[in-house]
């Protein structure tokens, strides 16, 4: 594993470069195909509303996949991610237009652990709401 960030160069509170990810209905259809999750709440507005959702929502696993990019783009080596966990607190609501929704992700080093690993705490927001809770990754640095 060859992460490009050195353990000795980070400290508790070090901020990772924040990123914003866009998601449209087309994104969700593509993710459904790639992941095999064809639950209609992610592409069928009528169905989503019938089960009490405000509109079509993104796959939680899509949001989870985007959020970790703040870590993998920082380290360079996605294989350096040892642990990654999230709680799905609010749905990312995706309207049927060209803009869709955005997911804003920031992260900072919360704890320096043994074996050149650090815990990064992530915050993911969409439409002003926190969409992931307890979003934490343990990553091995150089």
């Amino acid at each position, binding site marked *: *594993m*060859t992460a490009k960030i050195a353990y000795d160069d980070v400290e508790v509170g070090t901020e990772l470069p924040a990123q914003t*990810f866009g998601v449209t209905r087309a*994104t969700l259809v*593509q*993710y459904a*195909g*790639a*992941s*095999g*999750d064809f639950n209609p709440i992610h592409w069928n507005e009528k169905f989503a509303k019938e089960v009490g959702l405000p509109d079509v929502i993104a796959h*939680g*696993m*899509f949001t*989870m*996949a*985007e959020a*970790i*990019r703040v870590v*993998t*783009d920082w380290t*360079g*080596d*996605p*294989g350096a*991610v*040892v*642990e*990654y*966990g*999230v*709680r*799905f607190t609010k749905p990312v609501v995706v309207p049927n237009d060209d803009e869709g929704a955005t997911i804003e992700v920031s992260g900072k080093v919360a704890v320096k652990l043994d074996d050149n690993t650090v815990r990064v705490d992530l915050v993911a927001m969409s439409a002003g709401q926190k969409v992931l809770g*307890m979003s934490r990754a343990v990553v091995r640095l150089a």
Partner: protein
Amino acid sequence: MALDQSFVGRSYPPTDPYEVGREKIREFAEAVGDPNPAYTDPEAAKALGHPDVIAPPTFVFAITFKAAGQVIQDPQLGLDYSRVVHGDQKFVHRRPVRAGDRLTVTSTIEAIKSMAGNDILDIRGEVRDEAGEHVVTAWTKLVSRAAEEA
């Protein structure tokens, strides 16, 4: 109706092997819009010390969730899947999943809780390669929301 606590600790038989293909990894990386070359270029992956292209950290969910179907659809457990939402998800990786892996999953019910009429089910999926070596463990928390009163 609350789920039967006696199912806690129950393990299901390992799944048939899932063979991880380079093009499936590429398709997934494209779907999440991630251009990291470690997912698509074997040489870039080798430069990072991996024998072949690796999969994004959450890729394995497609495999473990399919395996968890054994639990979710177990008629004896009787989970109402139409009311299920994904509560939490966690992965602990021994190493990244990579192209060429033949992965089997053993699913175990770790916990069953009932809170305010919701059934909460924790499923652990242990993923092993063809040599029987541990690759990753996935923990999935599913919440079956209480049915509305008729």
